[in-house]
């Protein structure tokens, strides 16, 4: 037996910090990350950008700074993990791995802060989470006023209290669905003579906030003769907790999701969210790399995971829609969809193939929107400045519809288009535009 505090060899980056040392050495401090880092662009200080964070990481590993120093921790969490820096890094430093390894090391050392602990432990118990979300849907009327279709804004006493966290009267959030997506649909949607069977991993945002988007995605699969399993046993992908360093919870969530998909009998796994899809393609492989049971399962499903757009364009060769959608559309590349799943061509191809759609590219379509999952809650000021640049870029295209491929981005864009962008510009998942075209096609028949 080795003492618990001794480093154990053979462990990955998320169990042992020193495993990232070689990765850290790859950084030559050139600062190329400054060109793309959304936080650096906003704050213009070194501690915001990857080069600075890696400098601090080195100081931590050399022992000149303490990992659980309050300043170090707050710097480590001032990062969206959007991976933009990794796209422009000449020496291909896996910054996200180093960042998440550091966060995991903090959690190993100090445990999760009580608040995070409380949130994440709810995620582990899906039934509890479900009922919590239901209560949330009911109670949201107390704290939030209805602000038009499917939107809510904080009511005045709450808005006053929440002002500093961004919950002011102007804040628009999607309303929690009274019935989440997975409660609306059967576990298997059959079609006649199916081309193939896929499993749909809904993800939380689509399940709880945007079930209509999920229904659009399912309708598109149906139009293409694809049978869909929506296994009930699935839950959160785990990325929201993983980015906070909680490796154990994502492992637990991952095991449950992998088991659920194993029972689906599907050939492919489909996602409509870059973060969820990225988890299936990459993170599960990494966190289970030394797990003899779940390692192979993660590898199996990782290789079969597709964003709905790549599945349609590259796998089933989807049927081109005939229904007209008169709309000027622009597209925001969600970070995890483009930078983790490498999907950017396919959604554009789908949008451009819809009759009536005029596609207009915005400047820097792959610049982060500033959501970063919970980053928008913890660093509202920076997040909003980043989002403002994004919705201004989107506004300059004069598009009436701003599409993206990730529900978390949709939330962020929806709120900020309303505040700083082109008034009346709709925010949609690109799949909803395709679904609309199929619907219009039928209506015209």
């Amino acid at each position, binding site marked *: 037996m080795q003492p618990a505090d001794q480093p154990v060899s053979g462990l990955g980056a998320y169990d042992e910090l020193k495993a990232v040392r070689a990765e850290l*050495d*790859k950084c*030559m*401090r*050139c*600062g*190329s990350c*400054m*060109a793309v880092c959304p936080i650096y662009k906003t704050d*213009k*200080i*070194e*501690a915001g950008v990857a*080069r*600075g964070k890696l*400098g*601090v990481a080195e*100081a931590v590993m050399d022992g*000149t*700074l303490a990992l659980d*120093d309050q*300043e*170090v921790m707050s*710097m480590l969490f001032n990062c969206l993990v959007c991976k933009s820096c990794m796209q*422009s890094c*000449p*020496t*291909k430093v896996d910054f996200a791995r180093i960042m998440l390894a550091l966060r995991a090391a903090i959690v190993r050392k100090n445990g999760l802060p009580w608040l995070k602990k409380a949130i994440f432990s709810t995620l582990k118990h899906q039934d509890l989470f479900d009922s919590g979300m239901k209560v949330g849907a009911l109670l949201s009327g107390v704290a939030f006023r209805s602000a038009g279709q499917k939107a809510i804004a904080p009511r005045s006493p709450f808005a006053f209290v929440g002002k500093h966290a961004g919950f002011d009267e102007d804040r628009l959030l999607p309303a929690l669905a009274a019935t989440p997506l997975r409660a609306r649909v059967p576990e298997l949607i059959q079609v006649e003579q199916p081309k193939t069977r896929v499993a749909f991993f809904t993800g939380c945002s689509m399940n709880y906030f945007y079930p209509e988007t999920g229904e659009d995605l399912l309708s598109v699969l149906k139009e293409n003769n694809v049978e869909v399993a929506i296994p009930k046993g699935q839950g959160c992908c785990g990325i929201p907790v993983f980015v906070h360093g909680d490796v154990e919870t994502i492992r637990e969530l991952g095991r449950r999701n992998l088991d659920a998909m194993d029972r689906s009998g599907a050939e492919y796994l489909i996602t409509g969210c870059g973060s969820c899809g990225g988890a299936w393609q990459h993170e599960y492989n990494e966190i289970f790399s030394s797990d003899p049971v779940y390692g192979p399962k993660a590898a199996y499903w990782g290789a079969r995971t597709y964003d709905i757009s790549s599945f349609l364009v590259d796998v089933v060769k989807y049927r081109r829609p005939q229904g007209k959608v008169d709309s000027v559309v622009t597209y925001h590349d969600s970070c995890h969809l483009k930078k983790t799943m490498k999907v950017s061509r396919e959604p554009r191809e789908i949008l451009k193939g819809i009759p009536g759609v005029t596609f207009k590219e915005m400047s820097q379509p792959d610049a982060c929107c500033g959501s970063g999952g919970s980053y928008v809650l913890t660093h509202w000021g920076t997040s909003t400045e980043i989002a403002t640049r994004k919705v201004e870029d989107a506004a300059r295209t004069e598009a009436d519809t701003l599409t993206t491929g990730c529900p978390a981005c949709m939330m962020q864009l929806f709120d900020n288009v309303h505040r700083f962008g082109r008034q009346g510009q709709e925010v949609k998942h690109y799949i909803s535009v395709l679904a609309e075209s199929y619907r219009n096609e039928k209506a015209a028949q």
Partner: protein
Amino acid sequence: MLDKAIIQQLAIIVGHDQVLTSKVNLTTYGYDATADVPKGTPDVIVLPTSVEQVQSVVNLARKHGIAIYPRGAGTNLSGGTIPVERGIVLSLQKMDKILEVDAENLTATVQPGVVIQELNNAAAPHGLMYPPDPGTVTTATMGGSVAENSGGLRGLKYGVTKHYVMGMEVVLANGERVRFGGKTVKNVTAYDFSNLFVGSEGTLGIIVEITCKLLPSPKYRRAMLATYSTVEDAGNTVAGIIKAQVIPATLEIMDNMTIRTVEAFAHVGLPLDAEALLLIEVDGMAEEVVEREAEAVVKVVNANKGKLRVATSDAERDGLWAARRAALPALASLNNTVVLEDATVPRSKITDMLLALSAIGRKYSLVLGTFGHAGDGNLHPTILADKNNLDEMARVHMAVDEIFATALRFGGTLSGEHGIGVAKMKYLGNEIGETGLGLMRSIKNALDPTHMLNPGKLIPAPEAHVLAEVAHATR
């Protein structure tokens, strides 16, 4: 550590949020992009947003004898921004406004924190560009690149930063602000202060505004890539192109070590047995002129036994450029420390220098690849080493000594574009001699008698008693 009262006064000057003192921040401003130089730790980082604030900070620092290290994006390769003696890092990144693009006079006026690419983006709608093109164009600031007189890939045809600076405003060590130069093409009023402050590496004053020249962007360009079985053939091609009176915008060279590393790294289809490679791009406003120049280049390449690939589309051009762009990342991927030099020789000595560099690598048993701007004689011998291997690092230092000695022997210079900073200061006298050092000291002592601006860079710091005498004499 600085007195708390001073930190408070700084906060009064620039605002509390623009003064950084946390351990994390002090760590992240302790280095720049330079490898193998000691890190520093400042006492405080100050981020002014106006010229008045810069003046007040300078006055406060002077009063209390605190060093100031002006800093842009910290992308330089000579240790020019490292706070070697504690003190104040003065980051000018928040003074980042493009004050004007004047298409009628072909000028732009910018604050120092503007990123070079941002200026290009602002000039592009007018059909204009800011030609200096350092590898860090998307990150480096105008202030930093003017202070370092940076060069880049277009130096041969378009020149370097100093050829584009027409005027500035500078805060001097005595706290006064002075403007000189302007928008006129011709200006012989007073000393040529612009050329004094360009490349002064933050040692003479703090650049707070720059007026620079813009050029119409070329409308046509033609890229070619030639590979050679001997370095001599490549060198003769460079000489031949110039002799044929073609001035390419880009004329880049890579040695065999770099070619093999790039191919292994990026798989761009380079022949592994090629001893040298040239990337050549001609550009201009008229298609037929560009065509004619490209034809002349092809003739010279063929006459020197080069194997040629000519890009016929933007995609093919990107393919050719991919090899050049991969040079530094590919080499850097070989080890944890990248010692990137910029010894420069007259164009006619390119072949000799390349052969000498390769011999130096062998002599010290080091991994050494060379690429660079053959057209202007500015080479980048790049040594890849393990910083934890003390024996290897000792050999790196000997090799670097020899590289500089060789460049000077060929009538070249220590630095074509990276600057002297801390990294090359010890070699300075070898190039400019004792009288040259004396002239530098005279200028430095006249403008910054207490050596408070970027001390320990470019010019060796004087002994303490000399400093005291200078300070006394100028009081």
